């Protein structure tokens, strides 16, 4: 008899915690974006947009030798920036580490590419990507 009572108490206790947690969790998702979870309204999770304003390549003897980009971020902070150049089947990646970005665009120093891809028609694709450092 006592055993059954203990079981019931434990079950009710656990189910109460489970239901309360689930309700709180689902309410938070419903009311706010998921990004707000785990933070108060005073400290929301920042979401950044990497803004790429310009891409410039240098070409010598039909080879893409270096790249220069101008970037900014909607959320000021320190980022690692990567630029991947693809032309034909060739690709080369430039990287800039610990770059402090604000909403004001800045031009990063020219980066020498290796390997040097041949600049062939119809052209070259440059993908610029950024992540928090």
């Amino acid at each position, binding site marked *: 008899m006592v055993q059954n009572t203990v079981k019931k108490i434990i079950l009710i206790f656990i189910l109460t915690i489970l239901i309360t*947690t689930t309700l709180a969790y689902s309410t938070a998702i419903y009311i706010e974006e998921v990004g707000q979870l*785990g933070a108060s309204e005073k400290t929301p999770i920042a979401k*950044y947009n*990497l803004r790429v304003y310009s891409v410039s390549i240098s070409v010598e003897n039909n080879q893409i030798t270096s790249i220069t980009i101008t970037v900014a971020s909607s959320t000021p902070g320190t980022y690692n920036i990567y630029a991947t150049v693809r032309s034909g089947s060739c690709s080369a990646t430039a990287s800039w580490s610990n770059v402090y970005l604000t909403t004001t665009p800045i031009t990063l120093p020219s980066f020498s590419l290796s390997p040097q891809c041949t600049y062939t028609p119809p*052209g070259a694709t440059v993908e610029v990507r950024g*992540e928090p450092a």
Partner: protein
Amino acid sequence: MKGRPLKLPFLFFLIIIFIILFSILEAYSTLITISEVEPLPRRDSTTYFLSKYTGSHGEFNFMVETRSVELQPTGEHVNSAVITLYWTVEAPPGQDGREFTISVSLYDDNGGSLTSGSVTVCLLKGTNSGSYTIPLSSTNIDDVASVETSITDKGWCKIP
């Protein structure tokens, strides 16, 4: 307090419940940690396509390369693009060069066109480079997922 030991199904039930609780709390604490350490991405990449055109007309060859694309910002919006071209054009006597239409298009994440513009220029024969401004309708830079250029051959041209 005497009694029988807990039965196996009940123990199994308890274990499952604790795993669920642990998972929820773990996810919650992870979000707290992420929010304190670094921002999350809404847009973390943009793609540019720099076009190159080669062609010929009889014995005359021409090549046009896009060397750079620069979106001109006004606050968080862009309203024009400056394109730098490098070209080599051969032209017959009596012609000054070759005419090309240079286009730039901005696309969103779903591949939908945000804005586009073009400029038609007469590229003088020889090897040269130049920059051209293409007006665009005002577009929020945060919506731009890709920027594409294209080059269209329009035929011989003369400078009036």
